[in-house]
């Protein structure tokens, strides 16, 4: 996990180094130009005249001390800015993962009982849709449908500022109402993948010997499905869900932009428009951190449902 972070930080530095222009150019540009002498002074101030590896080392140390530089658009430290936005993204990413995973498993199990029936067809159609429809487009369509034509959900944001109440539940309900559409949009893609995978894995398990044994013992269909087959077919689905975390975070960026959800995605969008590179690099570091934490959690879940997985694998 630490290596992954270190590599991201080094990669960030490399890209900054290779990209045309440097920080002195940016500052000179915002000041409206600087002469040769000032440029040299600026470069010395920011350590840009040091050898490559010393610069790299200094950059890594700086990031390790949580100093990600300053945002020149918001005029505040990048770290504080990210901390302010991180909870919204975490809420969106994890709720979408949980919803898509649980619905996907339900749908997959249901479809596997009838491999050639309507539900299987539905799962297949859904997976085609999930692959082909760009997530931001799905989001816009849902927004048009459920905020414009049937106005049951708010158009944008995370909170309704007009609500005056000290009750925690009123606010929680308000956030949930705002969360619903973005979450469903993001979950729809992954629901498609998970349900298809769960159906396939369930079909494989249902043909196994131990399921036949369970049937021969006279267990009810429900017991066979839920107690014997499901537990054995879950691990590929969960493994895939873990691998999907980086895709979920990528999708969250687009979904947040559609719904103006005040998380890292909208921040990234705004910092692209404002050419605010330090913020963008900071977001890259933190979203990678989020994915690695998600992977760790997946490993823990996998280990708890499948005792055969042990050790550091």
């Amino acid at each position, binding site marked *: 996990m630490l290596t992954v972070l270190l590599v991201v930080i080094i990669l960030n530095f490399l890209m900054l180094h290779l990209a045309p222009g440097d920080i002195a150019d940016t500052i000179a540009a915002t000041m409206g130009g600087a002469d040769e002498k000032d440029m040299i002074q600026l470069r010395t101030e920011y350590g840009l005249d040091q050898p490559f590896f010393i610069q790299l080392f200094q950059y890594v140390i700086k990031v390790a001390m949580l100093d990600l530089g300053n945002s020149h658009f918001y005029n505040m430290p990048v770290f504080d800015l990210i901390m302010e936005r991180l909870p919204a993204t975490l809420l969106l990413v994890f709720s979408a993962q949980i919803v898509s995973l649980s619905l996907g498993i339900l749908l997959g199990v249901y479809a596997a009982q009838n491999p050639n029936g309507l539900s299987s067809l539905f799962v297949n159609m859904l997976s085609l849709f999930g692959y082909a429809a760009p997530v*931001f487009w799905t989001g816009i369509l849902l927004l*048009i449908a459920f905020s*414009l034509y049937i106005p049951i959900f708010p158009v944008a944001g995370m909170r309704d500022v007009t609500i005056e109440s000290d009750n925690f539940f009123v606010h929680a309900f308000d956030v949930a109402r705002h969360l619903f559409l973005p979450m469903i949009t993001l979950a729809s893609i992954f629901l498609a993948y998970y349900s298809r995978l769960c159906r396939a894995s369930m079909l494989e398990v249902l043909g196994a010997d131990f399921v036949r044994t369970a049937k021969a013992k006279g267990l009810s269909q429900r017991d066979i499905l839920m107690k014997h087959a499901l537990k054995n077919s879950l691990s590929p689905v969960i493994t895939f869900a873990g691998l999907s975390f980086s895709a979920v975070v990528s999708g969250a960026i687009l979904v947040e932009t559609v719904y103006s959800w005040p998380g890292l995605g909208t921040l990234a969008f705004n910092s692209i428009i404002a050419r605010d590179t330090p913020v963008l690099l900071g977001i890259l570091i933190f979203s990678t951190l989020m994915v690695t934490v998600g992977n760790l959690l997946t490993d823990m879940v996998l280990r708890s449902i499948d005792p055969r997985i042990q050790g550091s694998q």
Partner: protein
Amino acid sequence: MSHLDEQEEIQAKPSREMVGVFLRSYSALTGLIILIAVSIMGFIGPIFYTIDPFDMVWMPFSPPGADGYLLGTDYLGRDILSQIINGARVSIAIGFAAASVSCFIGVGIGAFAGFYGGWIEEILMRITEFFQVLPTLLFAMVIVALFGSSVLSITVAIGAVSWASVARITRSEFLRIKELDFVQASKASGSSDLNLIFLVILPNAAAPIIVQSALLVGAAITFEAGLAFLGLSDPNVVSWGQVIGANRTYILDATYTVTFPGIAIFVTVLAISLVGDGLNDALNPKLRSR
């Protein structure tokens, strides 16, 4: 020479059969026809439909069908049909080019990792794992934001972040095939390593790699659309995602400006995925009975 001819004939039969399997599957054939139609629209269409996608031709936000503009006009009064026709070329070209880039990187890394094993494999697979953890869209955003948004940098950025799956598949195929007899025979007869990798093993590992690459083309098209939606697109060309991104602010007034380019992306990527499924059925005889 006669020996070679004989070999070709042995190989020719199954491949003709594969084409048959591919064409007999209606969904794969439909996908292929749609894909060809969209490509023709993008590459030849502008000759017949001569309205410039950047020209302001009419009042902004005129709805579809009105005033002779079939799909209406956008917030600057540009013809949306023309944008979709011209966008097809860019979207499809970027999709195929980016998928080729990731195929190139992925096959290279996977092949060397699988063939050599040991510490080479360890290092290369660590790099691959890293690219699976990295949120690819963000990384591509950073690349394009730093190196400028030209068609080239966008293509390279998409290709450079989405090769991990190809590398994994290539590696596992290489691990399996390199132990087979004909590879050992070729090794014993003194083939060089590069010869073994690219002329002996790779052709036999091609099937799953081709299927995965086909899926990557579709993924690259949506990827490009996502970048364009966020404002990271080449301002000198028009692409489907760019049309959606440009009109995003006005969706509540003019829903069609977003709906039609989205349908174009959806149908094209769907067609590619159907072709990919067909290729999978044709190239994987083991799965055919399912």
